[in-house]
């Protein structure tokens, strides 16, 4: 059974067609990356999963429970960490976790888990601190705690690391990995492609409300037909015309060339450089990252 099944989901906001028949599955136990530029429809899709927005047509089920027809079971199966730092200023950290746990029907028996959550999120010493006294990073951790009070099998992290410092980002990455190791299905939306690349095993790229790519990370990376050849030149030099269209960057004598896997060979490139009497002191090749794949897919869409 898929953790999340999205079937032909359309969403119209007046004139805007925000989601155009989005249809895919998120396998159970996967660490799934949902990527896309601003306005691609990622948040709309997540909000439909969470029951915060209603789809114009189509359906989504969480662990087999339709988010509209079996909403109670669907919501019990899902934990959502919202993008914005929202909180209730009337309550302390522990009170908020208790309330959230109560909304899901858990009483005193859940206290042990709430204490454990505070411990894992390094919030134990802030348990009795009012929310408005916490730093942004701590508020973010409380949000994660609130999403996990009911131990949901599926956890959605909506841009969890936007605007957080490096230390907290690393902590969030480790935490998400631990959750995944414990068997939770994780859905991550992010602007940081590096984040998706290092954490996710399966990725969907949304653009203009459509899925433009859906694959395992390795297959997706393999789809990009280019690799990079990085050269450190001895001196600044004029790049021969035959190589000009392959130059990705050239700064401080560091030349990066984008070579097509099938049409360009490294030996041809080196030969061209040698003929132009350009010497280099070091070279290495670099496989493309998600950023290149992402840019090529979203740009193609934009210009189509």
């Amino acid at each position, binding site marked *: 059974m898929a953790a999340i099944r999205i079937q032909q989901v359309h969403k119209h*906001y007046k004139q805007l067609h925000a989601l155009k028949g989005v249809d895919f599955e998120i396998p159970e136990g996967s660490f799934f990356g949902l990527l896309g530029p601003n306005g691609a429809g990622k948040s709309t899709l997540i*909000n439909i999963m*969470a*029951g*915060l*927005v*209603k789809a114009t047509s189509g359906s989504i089920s969480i662990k087999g429970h339709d988010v509209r027809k079996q*909403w*109670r*079971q669907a*919501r*019990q199966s*899902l934990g*959502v960490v*919202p993008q*914005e730092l*929202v*909180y*209730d*200023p*009337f*309550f302390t950290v522990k*009170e908020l976790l208790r*309330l*959230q746990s*109560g*909304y*899901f*029907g*858990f*009483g005193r028996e859940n206290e042990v888990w709430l204490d454990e959550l505070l411990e894992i999120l390094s919030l134990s010493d802030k348990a009795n601190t009012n929310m408005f006294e916490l730093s942004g990073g701590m508020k973010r951790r409380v949000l994660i705690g*609130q999403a996990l009070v009911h131990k949901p099998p599926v956890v959605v992290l909506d841009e969890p690391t936007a605007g957080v410092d490096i230390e907290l980002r690393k902590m969030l990455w480790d935490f998400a990995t631990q959750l995944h190791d414990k068997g939770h299905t994780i859905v991550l939306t992010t602007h940081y492609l590096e984040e998706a690349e290092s954490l996710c095993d399966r990725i969907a790229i949304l653009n203009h409300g459509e899925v433009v790519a859906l694959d395992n990370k390795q297959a997706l990376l393999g789809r990009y037909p280019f690799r990079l050849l990085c050269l450190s030149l001895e001196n600044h030099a004029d790049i021969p015309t035959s190589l000009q269209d392959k130059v990705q960057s050239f700064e401080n004598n560091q030349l990066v060339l984008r070579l097509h896997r099938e049409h360009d060979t490294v030996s041809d490139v080196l030969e061209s450089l040698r003929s132009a009497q350009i010497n280099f002191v070091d070279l290495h090749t670099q496989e493309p990252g998600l950023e290149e794949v992402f840019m090529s897919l979203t740009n193609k869409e934009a210009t189509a």
Partner: protein
Amino acid sequence: MNGYGLYTLFSKEMWRFLKVSTQTLLAPIVTVLLYLLVFSSVLSGNIEIYDGVSYASFLIPGLIMMSITQNAFANSSSSLIQSKMMGNLVFMLLAPLSSLEFYIAFVGAAIMRGLFVGIGVWLASIFFVQLPVHSFAIILGFAVLGSAMLGATGIIVALWAEKWDHIAGFTNFVIIPASFLSGVFYSIYSLPSFWQQVSYFNPFFYIIDGFRYGFLGVSDANIMTSFLVTLSFFIIVSVVCLWLLEIGYKIRE
């Protein structure tokens, strides 16, 4: 039914106003006592609205009910608009809580705040005049129905409102005038006939008149009429409120 979830949301709503009780309980009680002090001392010697009933005895039930309804409305509307503005409404929307559970929790807390303020005014008024009690059941019945009706109205207004200003506007231009002009300070029989007729269309008139009957055993309108009108308004407002919650009006796009 998510019974524990409902109980938790109700507790949270109670907790919310109890944590700031100076503002939510004490302040309205003091305001009403000021009205009582001013009006009863200025007018007490001159007016006897019903035979054998002092003006203070006439005024106090009206003031109690006015404060119950205003505070019930303030509770649900301010809590919901604040959650909307702060964005923390999302935690309630993500939880497996139905529209009915949401409604019961919010209206329940609004009733409780109304009753707390009402009891506070009643207790403080003992220093002014010893109120008779004709029927405790009628007093409680109207207090609960009136505060529930205004609690549900508060939810509706907060769902519609997009900023605090909208709530303030509704409070100042609808709730306060309607509750002031409903026979709190006077019998509608002392009004010109046109305004008497207008008063019959004001639901606050029936809530206050029925509530006052619970104390004094006399009223402007028939007690059964007041009860049925109040009950009807409560049902209408509740149905609209539940429907708006069910369709997620302005909260689930």
